């Protein structure tokens, strides 16, 4: 995949993907990066991910807390807030409409 284009797409949706993952359960940066990779979105570097998390935190869509895990070092755990869940629900619907529009147009090219 063209990495530059992939980067552009990501910029538009990474925060939503992060919110969606946190909607499942609270998590920390490295685990989120792994989950995003595993879901096929591709590798996300820390330099891209943490600024997104900071922005989500600043705008109150996620909250964060340093905590020591059962084993291992203390980590900063992120959790979605009610406002975050609300934003996620609304924007997921918008994204669906947008992506299906793009899909419809692009499929015409493929099948031609």
């Amino acid at each position, binding site marked *: 995949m063209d990495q530059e284009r992939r980067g552009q797409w990501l910029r538009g949706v990474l925060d939503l993907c992060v919110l969606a993952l946190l909607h499942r359960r609270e998590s*920390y*940066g*490295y685990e989120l*990066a792994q989950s995003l990779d595993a879901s096929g979105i591709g590798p996300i*570097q*820390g*330099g891209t991910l*943490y*600024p*997104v998390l*900071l*922005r989500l*935190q*600043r705008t109150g869509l996620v*909250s*964060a*807390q*340093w*905590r*020591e895990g059962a084993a291992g*070092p*203390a*980590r*900063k755990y992120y959790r979605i807030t009610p406002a975050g869940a609300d934003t996620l629900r609304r924007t997921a619907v918008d994204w669906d409409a947008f992506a299906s529009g793009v899909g419809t147009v692009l499929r015409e090219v493929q099948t031609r």
Partner: protein
Amino acid sequence: MNSDGWLQALAGELHRRGLDPDLSRHVVAEAATHLRDSGEPPLQVFGPPATYATAVAESVGAPQPGGGVGVARVAMPVRPPHTPGPVRLEVRGITKRYRRRPVLTSVDLTVRAGEIAAVVGANGAGKSTFLRICAGLLSPDAGRVRVHGTLGYCPQSGGTADFLYPEEHFVLVGAGRGLHRAEARAAGRAHAGALDWEPAGRTQARHLSGGTRQKLNLVMAALGEPDVLLLDEPYQGFDRGTYLDFWQQLWRWRADGRAIVVVTHLLNQLDRVDTVLDLTPAREMSA
């Protein structure tokens, strides 16, 4: 560039961009954790320190007074801009060895009136040793501690007299700080009340629960309103509510102009203190 060098450079770049020091510390610590987890080189994960620092500064917007973005579990009262008072505790070059093993190596700390310093570090890093040296209970092998004013010390455990009632403790300790019996009892009750504890009962200290005994310890440390409070993980055995009360009490003491040193291993407190002294030995530090 290795991780330590990269993290140090990042701390410098964040500072240069005027980021709140608490927030910077969190960003650096989080990057350190990520690098430890992933085992990847920092330049690959985060890019050059300056680039990453710029991205962080943009995400958090303008520097915010009062600080950290870490969402506190205990609401911290809004503070007026920090105006440091006179220096109350001055620690310079403290070194302590047990047998041949160095526990503290050239440790410095300055705490002013109206400041809270948190002492952190792994088990065995010398946190309690450091506090005992500050309290004058233990001699360092090198270095100097100067306390400007009166001192209160709350040990991690012990410190209570098994066969005395709580109020007898207040009278005993109060006498040493120039309080009459009635004054000492009243002051003790007031401090206990802040921790949601009614100490008037006829229960000897040996029959108090661990958490209540620590409340007693804390109240004794605070009797006579000392200028400097040294608290060695005083919340052991506290339930959640008391733990929150304890931190509220610390904010009040700080607002009253006390200089407070508190040993803690709970990192979620660190965004709400003025100074953090990390006693983790340098070779084990990754941040």
